[in-house]
């Protein structure tokens, strides 16, 4: 089928994707496509109120509906000690509400019925009597005097404060600020948005009454970790739990957490003895599952008289919703936000943060982002452009003056990160060159003189991806390593299984290419499987751009391990000393006699048929890779915008994105990832918003209110690249999926602010909609 099917498919080859065939034919295996014998359907009743006490729940009418098998309430779950569950951030979360509802859309009860239509019918008949309480919809309201206590279920909790967390050196930072020539401040709100993968979340729980085995099909980016969490929550023995994460219709962080629906469906299947399917609808997805961002940030940047950055001070208030259920490594309450010094050689920094409960959905996830690095990157890049504008220095020049220089790597940042590698000036130069920056600036000047509103935005982001290492980064104590198991069959074909889980990233192709490169078996002869915990080796899953940095490294290592065994087999077949064999991708030959060779396929066959004395048969192996450090992809993005004075409409004229993600395994797939991230970044910058009214009603609860960019709005992208391999990754790869979402929002908004800067406008919070731009222009008398 594919025009590249004949290619070897080693590293750097843009072979077409191996997984495409089933998707193109409508034969993908997404969760809702599975139909099990005797399967029931579940629908969830959710709270219409953001904050209310439950006085009573009457399920009689619902139970009497045709087809209804059971109605599950919090009371029933409590009888099985499952009314509450632990969160990934060490808090608790209600599975089905027993006492109060704490956000609009919270799970209150569930109906299990023969068909999904019957389940939905009955949900509407459950009668809940609520006593409505005041809703708290922001950190400011959460900390106000006399604010209602949201988490009155928690012993010792007397207010809505969750945590205080700090990083950096306060005293040194204060001293640097005292000596500063100038301090530039930016207060900005990175609003709540939502990953909104096109496929919503869901599961089919199938607990066999005969064997006790719980097979749970689940939209999960991290099936192994989920299995362990399920074992801990339910008390089921872990070997009796099998999580199968089938084809995922996107994830972007949304499919990392455990949601109440999974727990209820599993409990229902256990109690009823039949499979139970639960698929959330789009409204449920947007109002109740893992949101992103919602950080109120204030940054101060101290600079000297020459424009050298001296210190950075940041405070943020984090809005965590009703339960602290952020998906992030245990130690870090604000994720990896403390990488906020970004690409700059800032001698000292101090970051403080406070988290608050609010009557909003819980579960802060990293929407296409490595644990909150997006918010950090946005703050520093917006602050740097504002500082340049305020200081009257060109924003590219100001960045270059303050970049960490190539010779400074490995570089230890003010908050303790050890950046593995980088060449920031080079990426900047490539971007400026591609943009034609010098000419463009003249054009902007000329057009401004004519009264036009136009500007250029730049962002030079540094990412931090590929968690672990395991000693520092863990999820609920599970070290963040990953794995690859490679089995080479006698005929020289192979199967590779990993602890990660693709959601569209093309793992079936990319990881086959690593085997093709390192073990010499053509990519088309390597099938890649993920997502079934009964068959795949344990790993922490796919998020935080960690698949290639961690599982990709594991794949390279296991391939090399098998190559060494193959060398011994080839030496045996050639009756040569293994020291005398030379490896050339796909074969070993005798040094000086290239015509005397054995292929990797010959060696594989020998592993099962013709072994040297004492060698174990087979050519199979597994590697668990705990990376020595994170990887640090980076790049420079540049955006040009025109703004219509009359309407405030922003038109993105150009978007140049130069990415350095180290070695690119399949450049076509890498570029596809970048396109997608730039589009989601555009959505976040200009369109996507989950917000709430004073009663805590979620605005943005469907795709008519939560605006996702379509082909018409999305700008065209111009890509560029530099390559600075990671020094510690076996292939030099760094991960790329999230860089464009991390780097691009600031570039887009910086362009708008640059365009508006002649009028004294210094900030507009995202999403930068036409009405906000128009209001800002109007406030300055620019438009009527």
């Amino acid at each position, binding site marked *: *089928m*594919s*025009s590249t099917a004949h290619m070897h498919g080693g590293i750097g080859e843009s072979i*077409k*994707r191996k*997984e*495409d*065939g*089933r*998707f*193109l*034919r*409508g*034969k*993908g295996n*997404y969760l*809702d*496509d599975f*139909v099990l014998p005797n399967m029931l359907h579940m629908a969830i009743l959710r709270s219409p109120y953001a904050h209310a006490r439950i006085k009573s729940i009457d399920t009689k009418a619902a139970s009497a509906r045709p087809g209804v098998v059971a109605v599950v309430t919090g009371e029933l779950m409590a009888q099985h000690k499952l009314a509450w569950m632990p969160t990934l951030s060490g808090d608790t979360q209600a599975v089905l509400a027993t006492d109060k509802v704490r956000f609009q859309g919270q799970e209150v009860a569930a109906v299990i019925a023969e068909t999904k*239509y019957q389940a939905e019918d009955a949900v509407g008949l459950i009668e809940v009597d609520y006593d409505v309480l005041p809703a708290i919809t922001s950190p400011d309201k959460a900390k106000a005097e006399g604010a209602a206590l949201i988490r009155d279920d928690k012993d010792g909790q007397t207010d809505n404060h969750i945590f205080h967390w700090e990083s950096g050196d306060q005293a040194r930072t204060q001293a640097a600020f005292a000596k500063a020539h100038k301090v530039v401040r930016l207060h900005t709100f990175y609003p709540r948005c939502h990953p*909104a*993968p*096109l*496929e*919503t979340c869901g599961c089919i729980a199938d607990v066999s009454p005969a064997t006790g085995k719980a097979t749970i099909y689940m939209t999960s980016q991290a099936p192994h970790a989920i299995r362990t969490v399920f074992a801990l929550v339910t008390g089921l023995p872990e070997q009796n739990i099998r999580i199968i994460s089938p*084809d*995922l*219709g*996107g994830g*972007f962080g949304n499919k990392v957490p455990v949601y109440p629906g999974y727990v209820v469906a599993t409990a229902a299947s256990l109690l009823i003895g039949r499979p139970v399917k639960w698929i959330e*609808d*789009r*409204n449920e997805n947007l109002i109740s599952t893992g949101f992103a961002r919602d950080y109120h940030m204030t940054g101060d940047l101290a600079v000297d008289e020459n424009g050298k950055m001296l210190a950075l001070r940041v405070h943020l208030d984090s809005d965590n919703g009703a339960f602290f259920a952020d998906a992030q490594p245990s130690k870090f309450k604000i994720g990896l936000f403390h990488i906020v010094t970004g690409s700059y050689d800032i001698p000292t920094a101090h970051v403080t943060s406070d988290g608050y409960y609010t009557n909003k959905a819980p579960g802060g996830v990293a929407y296409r982002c490595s644990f909150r690095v997006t918010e950090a990157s946005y703050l520093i890049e917006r602050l740097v452009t504002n500082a340049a504008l305020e200081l009257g220095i060109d924003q590219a020049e100001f960045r270059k003056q303050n970049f960490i220089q190539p010779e400074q790597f490995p570089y230890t940042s003010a908050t303790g990160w050890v950046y593995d590698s980088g060449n920031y000036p080079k990426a900047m130069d490539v971007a400026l060159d591609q943009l034609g920056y010098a000419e463009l600036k003249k054009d902007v000047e000329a057009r401004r003189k004519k009264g036009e509103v136009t500007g250029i935005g730049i962002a030079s982001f540094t990412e931090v991806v590929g968690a672990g290492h395991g000693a520092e980064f863990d999820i609920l104590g599970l070290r963040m390593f990953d794995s690859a198991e490679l089995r080479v069959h006698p005929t020289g074909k192979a199967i590779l299984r990993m602890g990660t889980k693709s*959601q*569209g*990233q*093309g793992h079936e192709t990319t990881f086959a290419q690593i085997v093709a490169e390192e073990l010499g078996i053509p990519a088309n002869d390597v099938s890649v499987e993920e997502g079934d915990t009964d068959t795949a080796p344990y790993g922490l899953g796919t998020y935080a751009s960690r698949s290639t940095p961690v599982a990709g490294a594991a794949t390279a290592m296991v391939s090399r391990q098998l190559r060494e065994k193959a060398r011994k087999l080839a030496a045996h077949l050639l009756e040569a000393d293994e020291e005398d064999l030379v490896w050339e991708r796909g074969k070993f030959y005798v040094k000086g006699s290239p015509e005397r060779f054995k292929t990797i396929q010959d060696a594989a066959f020998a592993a099962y048929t013709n072994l040297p004395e004492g060698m174990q048969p087979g050519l199979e192996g597994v590697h668990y890779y705990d990376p020595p450090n994170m990887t640090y992809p980076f790049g420079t993005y540049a955006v040009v915008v025109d703004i219509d004075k009359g309407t405030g409409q922003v038109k993105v004229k150009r978007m140049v994105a130069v990415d350095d993600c180290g070695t690119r395994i399949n450049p*076509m*797939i890498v*570029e*596809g*990832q970048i*396109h*997608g*991230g*730039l*589009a*989601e970044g555009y959505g976040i910058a200009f369109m996507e918003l989950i917000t709430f009214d004073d009663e805590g009603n979620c605005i943005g609860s*469907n*795709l*008519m209110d939560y605006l*996702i960019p*379509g*082909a*018409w709005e*999305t700008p*065209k*992208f111009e890509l560029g690249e530099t390559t600075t391999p990671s020094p510690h990754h076996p292939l030099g790869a760094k991960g790329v999926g999230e860089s464009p979402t991390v780097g691009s929002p600031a570039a887009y908004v910086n362009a708008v602010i640059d365009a508006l800067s002649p009028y004294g406008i210094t900030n507009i919070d995202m999403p930068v909609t036409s009405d906000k731009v128009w209001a800002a222009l109007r406030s300055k008398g620019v438009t009527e």
Partner: protein
Amino acid sequence: MKVTMRVNGVERSADVEPRVMLVDFLRSNLALTGTHIGCDTTSCGACTVQVDGEPVKSCTVLAVQAEGREIKTVEGLATGATLAPIQVGFHEEHGLQCGFCTPGMMMVTSALLERNPNPTDDEIRWAISGNICRCTGYMNIVKAVQHAAQLQSRTPAMAGGGE
């Protein structure tokens, strides 16, 4: 009530409740699960099928409204092992990632190519503006459709794929 329609060239009928949506009829009654549900509100286009050659979002059409109509779904694009030009285009130009929007995108764009064999990039973007893709940023979808247009112009007999 009984509903009868031609789906991918074959007459199909079933007893359904009057309220059953076309997408549920296709997925549940006919096991044609290539047509996906992404929003239930006609916003995302994952459920797009062709009804009498026109792209239609099947999550807000009742099955009974399709009575007597000619329905084409993603499963009807290829002819046996031979992919239709639009499918080849999506593969060759990396026009899909997670694949969830892909059937809807292909049903819209194959209909576009039927009435406009040589669309401009903007005409393609306008045609798919009712279909959301969360993965690709649309760049390669546009290329995929152009690729298919070129294939079809070279081999007119293949136009429209396998019927």
